[in-house]
């Protein structure tokens, strides 16, 4: 296979397995959207007074935001810390983050309803005493920053050289804004759960939960960059140029090492949560088993696997570890928002998502894949545009 990217000629066949499967999912998604906005939440969800937030919040929002953290971690490593060998990973990571956040806002419409009132919390009536206001403000600002960070790619594609050069000059300041907003936003998503000391299981509830969310987002983002790079190598290899292919190993080993270090720190600060709240007694229960699985199986084990992969230069092991870590973050966010939440309720009152809720989530993820594929096959994401090569 050639190492030089092949520009899209627009003559690719329309009937491909990817297009067929995604088209079916999109059609089902449009039907579910119709049901949701004509019949209300009750028509498509199992939400009730005990569970006003379901998997649309747990997966689309909490996991979506955590896994979009690759944008700020990669940009900070390259532009703030000056580690230029990660440059090839910046554009795919920023695109993933931008789409991740855009889909968070898109998916939020299904939960909140009334899309025409989306701007109300920012421009009409600000609830400045609410953590949700901070979440909303950060999503609004950070989505704008990510859009501006991503903008050079479409501008190069559209050959708008002057505007592109202006945007490139703003890179550093946008990266700094991005890091600040992400720090606030990732932690404030955790801070939402500070409201629920009596509803959350003590093993997950902690006054340090904003810190847990922020620290875990860092290794989630790093792992997501490795995971996304694995998928791109598998499916979009022909779009990558030599610089991107060469930089790929630097990114894999560097990010795996950083993730292993942060995961060890995360493991210990979670352990401090158990120590300071004297939660030892809960470890020997059903919920304790889930907690141990999360901490040992999805934090300690991947950290060891990353470390072993870095020491033995084993790319394959690191890529598998990234997938496990991404799964672990999903497990953690589900545990916080659904499993540990309302843990005292009898099982018949517990929430399990309706098949239509799962359908909407699959629809949202599929939309992200379609847009990612559309952009990365047309715009200079996985290669340097020939007019702007260093």
């Amino acid at each position, binding site marked *: 296979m050639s190492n030089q990217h092949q520009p899209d000629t627009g003559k690719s066949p329309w009937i491909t397995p990817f297009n067929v499967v995604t088209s079916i999912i999109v059609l089902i998604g449009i039907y579910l959207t119709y049901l949701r906005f004509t019949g209300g939440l009750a028509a498509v969800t199992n939400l009730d007074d005990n569970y006003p937030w379901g998997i649309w919040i747990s997966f689309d929002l909490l996991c979506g935001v955590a896994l979009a953290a690759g944008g700020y971690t990669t940009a900070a490593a390259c532009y703030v810390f000056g580690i230029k060998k990660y440059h090839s990973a910046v554009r795919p990571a920023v695109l993933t983050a931008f789409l991740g956040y855009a889909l968070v806002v898109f998916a939020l419409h299904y939960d909140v309803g009334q899309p025409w009132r989306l701007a109300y919390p920012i421009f009409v009536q600000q609830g400045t005493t609410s953590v949700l206001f901070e979440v909303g403000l950060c999503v609004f600002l950070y989505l704008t920053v990510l859009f501006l960070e991503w903008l050079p790619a479409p501008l190069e594609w559209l050959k708008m050289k002057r505007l592109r050069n202006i945007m490139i000059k703003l890179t550093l300041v946008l990266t700094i804004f991005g890091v600040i907003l992400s720090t606030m936003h990732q932690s404030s998503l955790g801070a939402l759960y500070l409201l629920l000391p009596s509803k959350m299981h003590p093993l997950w509830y902690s006054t340090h939960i904003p810190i847990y969310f922020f620290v875990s987002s860092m290794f989630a983002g790093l792992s997501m960059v490795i995971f996304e790079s694995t998928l791109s190598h598998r499916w979009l290899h022909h779009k990558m140029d030599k610089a991107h292919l060469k930089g790929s190993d630097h990114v894999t080993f560097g990010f795996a*090492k950083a993730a*292993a*270090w942060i995961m*060890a*720190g995360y493991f*210990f600060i979670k*352990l*401090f949560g158990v*120590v*300071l*709240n*004297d939660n*030892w*007694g809960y*470890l*020997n229960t059903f919920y304790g088993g889930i907690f141990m699985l999360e901490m040992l199986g999805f934090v300690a084990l991947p950290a060891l696997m990353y*470390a072993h992969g*870095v*020491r*033995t*230069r084993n790319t394959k092991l690191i890529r598998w570890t990234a997938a496990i870590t991404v799964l672990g973050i999903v497990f953690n966010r589900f545990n916080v928002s659904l499993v540990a939440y309302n843990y005292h309720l009898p099982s018949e009152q517990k929430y399990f998502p309706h098949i239509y809720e799962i359908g909407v989530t699959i629809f949202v993820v599929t939309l992200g894949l379609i847009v990612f594929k559309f952009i990365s096959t047309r715009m200079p994401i996985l290669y340097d545009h020939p007019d702007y090569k260093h």
Partner: protein
Amino acid sequence: MEEAIYYTLQEYQNFTKDWAYIFMGVTVVTMLGWWLFLSGQDEDEE
């Protein structure tokens, strides 16, 4: 594990903070070792 009984907040704080300080020491030493383990092969490459 038998559940401990604390009669005062002072007792509870003493118990949990004692353990927290012990874990802090363990964490510092472990993290140093972890960094050396992670970076162990770096010099060989250079």
